[in-house]
């Protein structure tokens, strides 16, 4: 492995928001499933099961929203691997070539995949879509949340969505996107494992340390 060397790729904000997202999405999913289809867990009316679950859901929602906002900010401030450009390889000819090459590798059409330092081209594109889903979740979630205080600022900001789409449409969207994100999480963990094994770049551990094994000096 003489030609490999450790390169600092993922800066602290990238890793921090990543793991905060993991944690908050896990909590949001579990509490969300309970809120959507609760079991009778309270024994007496003085219990507060749903109350606490909703409290945790809303707190995690704030955490998630701040994390996503921070990551978007960092897409304009961070290093080249954190940049928003990484999420839109489709905009450049080289990016499009990489996307095709990665696709051919994934579908067994070709034996060698590209060896990117940052995100691989398909992953970057997927993350752009995932961020759109995140925003959909945040917007629909806070719109529904704000309904408890119809004269509040949040409801004033989001109320037009309830007029445009019905509350029920927003709830269904919020619920279905949860399933899409669960699907994404499965895919994401698998791909990371695959890359780890095949590239031997240590992409998994790089999300803790920030360092990735790369081939040549840029």
């Amino acid at each position: 492995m003489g030609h490999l060397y450790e390169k600092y790729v993922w800066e602290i904000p990238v890793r921090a928001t990543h793991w905060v997202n993991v944690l908050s999405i896990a909590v949001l999913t579990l509490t969300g499933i309970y809120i959507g289809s609760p079991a009778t867990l309270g024994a007496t009316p003085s219990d507060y099961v749903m109350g606490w679950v909703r409290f945790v859901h809303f707190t995690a929602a704030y955490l998630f929203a701040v994390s996503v906002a921070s990551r978007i900010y960092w897409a304009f401030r961070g290093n080249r691997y954190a940049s928003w450009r990484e999420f839109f390889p489709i905009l450049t000819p080289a990016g499009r070539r990489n996307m095709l090459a990665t696709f051919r590798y994934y579908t067994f059409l070709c034996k060698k995949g590209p060896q990117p330092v940052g995100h691989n081209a398909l992953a970057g594109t997927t993350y752009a879509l995932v961020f759109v889903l995140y925003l959909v979740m945040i917007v629909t979630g806070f719109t529904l949340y704000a309904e408890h205080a119809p004269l509040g600022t949040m409801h004033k900001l989001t109320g037009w969505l309830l007029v445009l789409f019905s509350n029920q449409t927003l709830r269904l969207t919020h619920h279905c996107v949860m399933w899409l994100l669960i699907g994404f999480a499965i895919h994401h963990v698998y791909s990371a494992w695959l890359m780890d094994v095949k590239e031997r770049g240590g992409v998994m551990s790089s999300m803790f340390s920030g360092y990735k094994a790369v081939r040549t000096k840029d």
Partner: protein
Amino acid sequence: MARKQGSDTEATNGLEFQDSVSTLLERRGVTRREFMKFCTAMSAALALPPAFAPRIVRALDEVKRPTLVWLEFQSCTGDTEALLRASNPTVAEIVLDILSIDYAETIMAAAGHLAEANLDKVVREEKGTYIAVVEGSIPMKDDGIYCCIAGRTALDRAREVCGGAFATLAVGTCASYGGIPAAAPNPTGAVGVKAAVPSATVVNLPGCPLNADNLTATVVHFLLFKKLPATDGLGRPLFAYGKRIHDNCERRPHFDAGQYVEAWGDQAHRHGHCLYKMGCKGPETFHNCPTQRYNDKTSWPVAAGHGCAGCSQPMFWDSMTPLYKRLPNVPGFGIEATADKIGLGLAVGTAAAFGVHGVLSAFRRGDDSEGAKED
């Protein structure tokens, strides 16, 4: 009421209405005490501080009656029924009575062209000062031929009457947002008043049927402040539709506690637990049912053990169904293809696909991507 007060008004209204509302009430056998009680109840319904009650008394003491015309289009007459059955007779009924109800198909004595002439007269002579109440939706398809009165379409009549009114009160969900006639596939192209006559000043009082208390309160607000109440984004007065059912529901402690009815008639149902899992739409419906209740505050659906159907939300028949499930069906799929089944299928499918991919990858020979060997 924007209508001018003074000799000309009195002249058109006739001698009887030189008297104040309270005198009229007295003549009808409503005591001062009942009248005061009504005014206090109205200040509560309007969510005004109790100090407003004497102001309501004064306003109603002085008021000269404005004209009110009640139009009925594609409806089941439920709102008229709600109004008529509100009480026997309460102050509320008389206050609405005291508005000169010059036209209301179900209850007016006149018929045929005489009745129509009455309406024409109001529109002609009291332009900009009368109140129009609309019950039922207005069909737009095929030039509106699906609802005609005296040979004229509902749309035509609504344009004329609502367009010339000081304000239009759309009572019930049909008049507000099209209601059941507008439910998919909406064969008549039914819409609410505001959609049919965009130029009209409309206050929506949805509900299936409307709560007569909210109608009376809107009229009292109007007599008291000489203007229409503040409304939300859907044109509904905030005093009546400013809060969610869920946030005022008497079953809410059971919701927060985590105690749910799982089947009709089970132990939890008999104990009055929360109807959330039975598809109650209280969490997504704005109305004052829990506090104002129906039929002289006797009861309301959730108190009676049935979940809220969300009847005061736009297009409730399409968006609040299935009534006994939490979420709407995913559009474009069969009834059984609920969101969770699709979601679970998606998740399992993803996992399976990657499992297969993983196995194939493991057997892939001479994989040049094993980068550490490169360069």
